[in-house]
């Protein structure tokens, strides 16, 4: 697992209270990990904090799965 994926996994486990082995790359935050719309807003805020990036609302809406988050952050992290 890449360093980015590890850090994303840690945040998801902490914020959604799910087991680490559930946080696979193709897992959807809402459909598979029990998040609601407010949880996803907070997750994006936590990614911004951890990776020192600002994720615009348009991009935040496209981050639906763990892989979406990892790919976006790989591309845009500071």
């Amino acid at each position, binding site marked *: 697992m890449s360093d980015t994926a590890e850090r994303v996994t840690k945040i998801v486990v902490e*914020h*959604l*209270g799910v087991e680490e082995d559930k946080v696979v790359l193709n897992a959807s935050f809402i459909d598979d990990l029990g998040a609601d719309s*407010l949880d996803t*807003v*907070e997750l994006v*805020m936590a990614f*911004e*904090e951890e990776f020192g990036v*600002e994720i615009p609302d348009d991009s935040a809406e496209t981050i639906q799965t763990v892989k979406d988050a990892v790919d976006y952050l790989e591309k845009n992290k500071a």
Partner: protein
Amino acid sequence: MRRVVVTGIGMVSPLGGDAETTWSNILSARSATKKVENFQVDDLPAQIACQIPFGDGSDGSFNADDWMEVKEQRKVDPFIVYAVSAATQALNDAGWHPKTDDEQHTTGTMIGSGIGGLQGIEQTSLLLAERGPRRVSPFFIPGRLINLASGYVSIMHGLKGPNHSVVTACSTGAHAIGDAGRMIALGDADVMVAGGAESPVCRLSLAGFAACKALSTDYNETPEKASRPWDEDRDGFVMGEGAGIVVLEEYDHAQARGAKIYGELIGYGLSGDAFHITAPAENHEGAFRAMKASLKRAGIDASEIDYVNAHGTSTMADTMELGAVERLAGDHASKLTMSSTKSAIGHLLGAAGSVEAIFCLQAMRDSKVPPTLNLDNPASDTQIDLVPHKAKDKELTTVLSNSFGFGGTNASLVFRKV
């Protein structure tokens, strides 16, 4: 109107994570007042408080994880966690877990708070100033709103009847029980989960209440002596936190399922002072009228009251309340017993009225009157027994609980053994 009884109690208090641990510590004359150590207080005039005994849940300590998932706790202020715990305890105690549509639709919630999520407001406003609006959590608002205590309890237990809340400062807990009782009496619900919750202990509130000259400031080095209702050397209240929640139930509904009954809510009186934002009206005449109204509703005479759990905050207003109770009791004063449990657990603000209503029910059940700690030198002569220092045995049939709040809002509850 339909009769309303209490069939379950739940509590999180500075003297324990549940109602029975708290009660046993109250009867043992323990004080919960301590120096605050979890945030900076050295620049504050009041440096003491009664805080929740967090722990692993054993020995009567409070373990929030036993009651609410960690990821949910992170989203809300502690008053909601305390409310969820106390409400769950009360529902378990009542053995009432609504499953059918009919059961769910006739069970409601009425949990209030005096201030709500002040800790989160304090922290988030600092975050906003330091880091800007993008760092404000989407859970900031729903995790601080006062009625979200009722909201969370309703969601977690599937309660689909009235979902309401009360905000009347330090009368909140009593008003919540009284108003919820009326909803049952009038047929809006058969069961109501009612009470108050508060988590005010933070720098902002200690500074704010001290600025209104409401807090004790002379006992920072001897915290256990600070809360001393009716004593000559009292100098203000000690802030507390927690929640007290009861399950109120229509009498026949409770009988039909063989529920244990703590007592009947026979009286509820309300009044307004129309006088001052923080000071009580002269001679506490508003308090007098609230008590009088509760007796009228109960259809009883003051001579039938065996015990009064006073508002008794350890402020100048204590003796005014005492005078009002003396006027109410008349010749019965010499037979009346009154104490202030705030001497042990401090002032739980919006949770005070419901926590103290629960003490009244436990007192009736056990024939024990809780003591008024630190009452070394009563500030005024009275025929009423103020139960200094030690709990007393006394058969209790009818009890009255007083709560008065900023804004001149007064409430009295009367309970009777069934």
